[in-house]
């Protein structure tokens, strides 16, 4: 994580501010910063999106490739998440420095997308047990300025929304093998249904209260965060406590329900914005 | 019921909490485990070793026997502490006595491995630094490191600073501090003959060291040890 040094007094100032519901950038505890999305940024990817939220800058590219389904799930396609922490974002990421964070985000994403109800992987299957689409989702962290998980998940969802998968025609030859023909028409494609894709919402415990969309300074002041992935329907697909603190069961319940409500409306707002553009 | 195959004890015990009930109330109250509330905070008790204060209570932070004793510094107050059978100290403490082994001696300082604090022996040593000016209390300028310590010597020191993150800063500037075990060039354990000399029992050669003045306690321990070995 991008570590920022803060003096004790600054931390106290931030903690008291959160308790008074006035954060250092003027927001209240449950207020989200404005952010900017851009889809179709990378022209040679199947889908891409960039999200900029204060100082956090995320680029996501989706690449669809043909592959073989997993042995245990012959009727499903695959999602592969890969996160790259650019050394631009933080000099500490150079070499293998960003590996831990990258693995962490990637596992969080694959957990959030792990269930069939989020993204129906069966639709990515072409021929049972033989061919399927594999979506390689590459996340590039260009700048890290707080609330990383949320920003990444917003970018992933936007990039999936933007993803175009070419339509295929299947023929079976004499030997019972399936042959695949790719359509020549570049406009002959289908889109992915992202309606129920989850968004990660980070709820940051600071002092006795909790905030959403924390800035880097606020993250430093908090001992622990709860990252909850929420779908549009309000289902929870993953929950994870991050950081060295512990929480009372009651505060977990509170934080989960805050995150859930934020998640539902954030999903709605993002989808509306994405659709409004077309 | 699970068959237990990997246990070290001969008697196999299966804890099945369905039959458990509250029988552990039967074990004497004097054993505490981490997180167990020992008592409410009040003005008469002080939280001692192995305990911590949280909200309105004093809690145990160790697994061991609860001990209540009168505080020496503040008469009338009770000190509550939890004693383990294990080592008391996990790390060298500021102002504490440590036993260390010299690993490197240069004209300006000695590098040492701290291998024990008081009676607690470390499996993995901590790095310590014994600077030339901290070897002796008087005539600091005349100290020559090679006449005080050699690599391999066991030295009793006091921690005077936790220093930078690399090593603890140690001192031997007390009579009772200094070399307690040293080997002569012939390889025999030497005996102290003065505060600055030790003698090899094999070759009778005299070597210079900053020798620790043995305390009565220490002599007793050595006697006890010899006694034990003879009995065995």
């Amino acid at each position, binding site marked *: 994580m991008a570590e920022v040094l803060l003096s004790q007094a600054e931390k106290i100032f931030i903690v008291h501010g959160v308790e008074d519901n006035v954060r250092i950038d003027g927001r209240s505890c449950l207020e989200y910063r404005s952010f900017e999305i851009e889809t179709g940024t990378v022209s040679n990817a199947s889908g891409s999106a960039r999200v900029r939220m204060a100082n956090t800058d995320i680029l996501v590219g989706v690449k669809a490739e043909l592959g073989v389904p997993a042995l245990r799930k012959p009727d499903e396609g695959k999602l592969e998440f890969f996160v790259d922490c650019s050394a631009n974002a933080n000099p500490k990421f150079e070499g293998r420095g960003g590996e831990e964070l990258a693995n962490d985000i990637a596992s969080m994403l694959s957990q959030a997308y792990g269930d069939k109800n989020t993204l129906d992987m069966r639709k990515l299957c072409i021929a049972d047990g033989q061919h399927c689409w594999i979506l390689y989702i590459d996340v590039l962290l260009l700048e890290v300025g707080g609330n990383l998980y949320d920003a990444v998940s917003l970018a992933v969802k936007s990039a999936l929304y933007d993803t175009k998968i070419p339509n295929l025609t299947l023929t079976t030859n004499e030997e019972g093998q399936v042959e695949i023909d790719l359509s020549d028409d570049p406009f002959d494609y289908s889109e992915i249904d992202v309606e129920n894709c989850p968004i990660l919402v980070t709820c940051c415990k600071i002092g006795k209260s909790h905030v959403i969309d924390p800035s880097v300074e606020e993250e430093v002041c908090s001992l622990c965060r709860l990252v909850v992935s929420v779908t549009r329907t309000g289902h929870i697909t993953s929950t994870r406590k991050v950081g060295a603190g512990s929480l009372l069961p009651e505060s977990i319940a509170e934080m989960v329900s805050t995150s859930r409500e934020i998640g539902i409306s954030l999903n709605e707002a993002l989808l509306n914005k994405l659709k409004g553009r077309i | 019921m699970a068959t237990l*195959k*990997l246990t*070290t004890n001969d008697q196999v015990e299966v804890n099945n909490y369905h039959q458990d009930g509250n029988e552990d109330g039967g074990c004497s109250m004097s054993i505490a485990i981490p997180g167990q509330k020992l008592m409410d905070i009040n003005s008469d008790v002080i939280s001692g070793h192995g305990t911590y204060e949280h909200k309105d209570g004093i809690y145990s932070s160790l697994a061991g026997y609860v001990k209540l004793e009168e505080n020496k510094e503040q008469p009338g107050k009770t000190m509550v502490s939890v004693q383990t059978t294990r080592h008391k100290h996990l790390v060298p403490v500021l102002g504490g006595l440590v*036993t260390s*082994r010299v690993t490197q001696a240069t004209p300006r300082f000695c590098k040492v491995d701290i291998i024990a604090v008081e009676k607690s*022996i470390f499996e993995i040593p901590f790095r310590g630094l014994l600077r030339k000016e901290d070897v002796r209390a008087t005539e600091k300028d005349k100290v020559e490191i090679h006449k005080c310590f050699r690599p391999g010597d066991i030295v009793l020191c006091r921690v005077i600073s936790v220093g930078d993150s690399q090593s603890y800063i140690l001192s031997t500037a007390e009579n009772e501090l200094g070399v307690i075990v040293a080997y002569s060039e012939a390889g025999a354990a030497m005996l102290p003959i003065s505060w600055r000399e030790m003698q090899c029992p094999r070759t009778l050669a005299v070597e210079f060291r900053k020798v620790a003045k043995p305390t009565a306690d220490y002599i007793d*321990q050595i006697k*006890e*040890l010899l006694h034990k070995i003879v009995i*065995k």
Partner: protein
Amino acid sequence: MSAANEVRAYQRKEYLLKFLEQDVRPDNRGLGDTREAKLTLGAISTADGSAMVKLGHTVAVCGIKAEITRPPTDKPDSGVIIANVQLPAMCAPEFKSGPPSEKAQVLSDFVQQVLLDTGMIDRTQLCIESGLHCWILYCDVICCNYDGNIRDAVLLAAVSALKDVSLPMAQYDAEQENLTIDKDRKRQLTLSCMPVSLSFTLFDDAVLLVDPTHEEETVCQGQITVITSGGDSICSVSKHGGASLNPEQLTLCISKAKQRWCDISKLMTSNHL
């Protein structure tokens, strides 16, 4: 108590010497006594064969996983056995996490070599169809507690885990080019012999200590390992480092090793009952 502990910590050699002068070792054994050995077979249900061995405090667990592979090209009628020994950072303070240390590699080679070279197992019984399919036995030994004489412990664990292996029946249909495996029917492996090792070390270039603890190993030099496989047959005698041995000492080692084989073999049979 504390003074004894201090000497134990600072002057290990002196400490041991004080005991050896009385012909006794710090854990109350005589110079020629081995520690009590314990053996448990089949402790790990996810493995196809497993064993846990205890020599005093030293604990080694071996689990064997069987998979299907292609037989080696030079021996189309034989199966494969791969032995690896792990010394995880958990088992003693001197080990680091990460890839296998030199010590672990040496032990892996040792076990691999003994399993293959003594001919204790006829590898053709692992073959399913010549040149096409065979069983591969991954024989992984993990040291759970390292308190000296790890060699004897890992070898015993590996050998007894092999004894415990039961493989599902496999059948190859040449016409359909189809391999089927029936998990409900299982068979044991046939072992032709059981190699058992016994290790010694040398204190002060003169005193032979059998089945040394870690504490003894740190102040002793050299390692003598004798592997016997029952009766009068000796599989291997090896000696690394330390002072030279006189013939009497070596004879003593060998006779102790033979005795060891009998003890272990008794232990093994009692476990199988």
